[in-house]
């Protein structure tokens, strides 16, 4: 009990000291992302919508009949996976990209991957607007279950942060990670039901298929949005595990190696 209190007070203390820095870094990431682009922040809305449109045109004849409300199904998948690939891709570069800072000023190093994931998180929140729009356009009833959406989103952010911590650590020691990750995340996209129904997966692979944490998180979000009901208790548990385990592993890997970062930058 005592130890837990310690962690909590330490977290609060760290937040008071570095919360402002975190906000500054997040707003910098966000500002520089759309710097010098004409449409600017609008891209946060347009990007998922246009991706959905393309994939809808391509895949609707293939899978449409199997999936009720295919546009919404597609868009939730795209929004979640976009966040996953953007946040992990940015977190990957967070330590090596801030090398000039890390070698000159002492700041807890987890700030860098965390700020990257959070600034993609803002993007995620903004892409909820087109999501809601599509919900209304497809006449999907908005039910109280939508209030459960934050649980799914927080799990998603936690999962991505965990992966981001691992990737940023790997990147310091092996610069090949960035190219490897491009391939792995492509594979990951096909291993996740984004544009296809999960029923096309052969039953014998289902067990492996369900090891994918993103599968559980996206499933949770879809049940909440499309069916408008609360998922079964098991789905909550799986969703939390899918988020918590990678986060703890990522934090441990990062913590163990962070003192060696400076010597390898």
């Amino acid at each position, binding site marked *: 009990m005592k130890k837990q209190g310690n962690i909590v007070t330490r977290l609060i203390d760290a937040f008071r000291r570095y919360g402002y820095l975190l906000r*500054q870094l997040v707003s910098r990431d966000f500002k*520089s992302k759309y710097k010098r682009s004409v449409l600017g922040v609008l891209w946060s809305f347009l990007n998922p919508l246009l991706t959905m449109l393309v994939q809808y045109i391509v895949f609707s004849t293939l899978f449409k009949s199997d999936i009720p409300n295919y546009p919404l199904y597609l868009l939730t998948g795209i929004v979640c996976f976009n966040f996953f690939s953007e946040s992990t891709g940015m977190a990957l570069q967070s330590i090596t990209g801030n090398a000039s800072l890390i*070698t*000159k000023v002492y700041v807890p190093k987890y700030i860098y991957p965390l700020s990257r994931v959070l600034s993609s998180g803002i993007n995620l929140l903004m892409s909820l607007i087109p999501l809601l729009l599509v919900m209304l356009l497809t006449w999907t009833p908005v039910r109280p279950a939508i209030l459960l959406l934050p649980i799914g989103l927080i799990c998603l952010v936690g999962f991505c942060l965990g992966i981001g911590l691992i990737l940023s650590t790997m990147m310091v020691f*092996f610069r090949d990670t960035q190219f490897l990750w491009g391939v792995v995340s492509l594979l990951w996209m096909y291993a996740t039901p984004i544009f296809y129904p999960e029923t096309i997966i052969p039953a014998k692979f289902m067990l492996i298929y369900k090891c994918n944490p993103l599968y559980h998180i996206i499933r949770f979000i879809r049940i909440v949005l499309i069916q408008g009901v609360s998922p079964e208790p098991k789905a909550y548990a799986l969703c939390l595990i899918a988020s918590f385990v990678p986060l703890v592993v990522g934090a441990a890997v990062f913590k163990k190696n962070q003192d060696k970062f400076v*010597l390898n930058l």
Partner: protein
Amino acid sequence: MIRAEHVSLCYRMTYDRVKSMKEYVVQLLKGKVRYEEFWALKDLSFEVRKGEVLGIVGHNGAGKSTLLKVISGILKPARGSVAVNGVVAPMLELGSGFDFDLTGRENVFLNGAILGFSEQFLKGKYEEIVEFSELGQFIDVPLRNYSSGMVARLAFSVATVVRPDILIVDEVLSVGDADFQEKSKKRMLELMGGGTTVLFVSHSLEQVRAMCDRVLWLEHGEMKMLGEAQRVCDAYQLGEGGE
């Protein structure tokens, strides 16, 4: 205030920096992953009292900057320990936290946050920072359009706005034009007079003599001499002449 005990630090240098997995495996198979150990700091022990100004002198590569990095917490010593009491304001390289796409104003807050200042503090001191930097209307222009002197002036203004417990200064007094140098020197002296502990690295012995109480002379990572400023500076100058 600062107590260093048997501090040693080792850089591991590979002959060819192995930066990719493929390279690493290839080198490993060839049995070629060799490291050369380079001890940048060897068994340093010293203490700095509150309010003291400690100068650090030594040739290039003697370990001065490495020592400052260890004290400010950026590097962890391989052996030994450093205990520091109080808020450290490192001025290792001015403006290292600047983003050149953002304006001067945005950078004041970003860099201030990186140096560990709070939001209210920065808002309160903002006018003072801008005034000291003499940037005037340029404060709302992106940094990429600044001259290097302007960047340095802004950085110095942000870094010294606070009165830290410990100030670490690495060759930053040569910032800006003559007027600004005079001004920044005055600001430094002000800070030093106000009970701030200062670690001061400079190649200008004149500055060291003028500002420091005690001087630490490093050579190849080892402590060659530690003592009263004039005495160490004299010895250092003699040693330099002798080599």
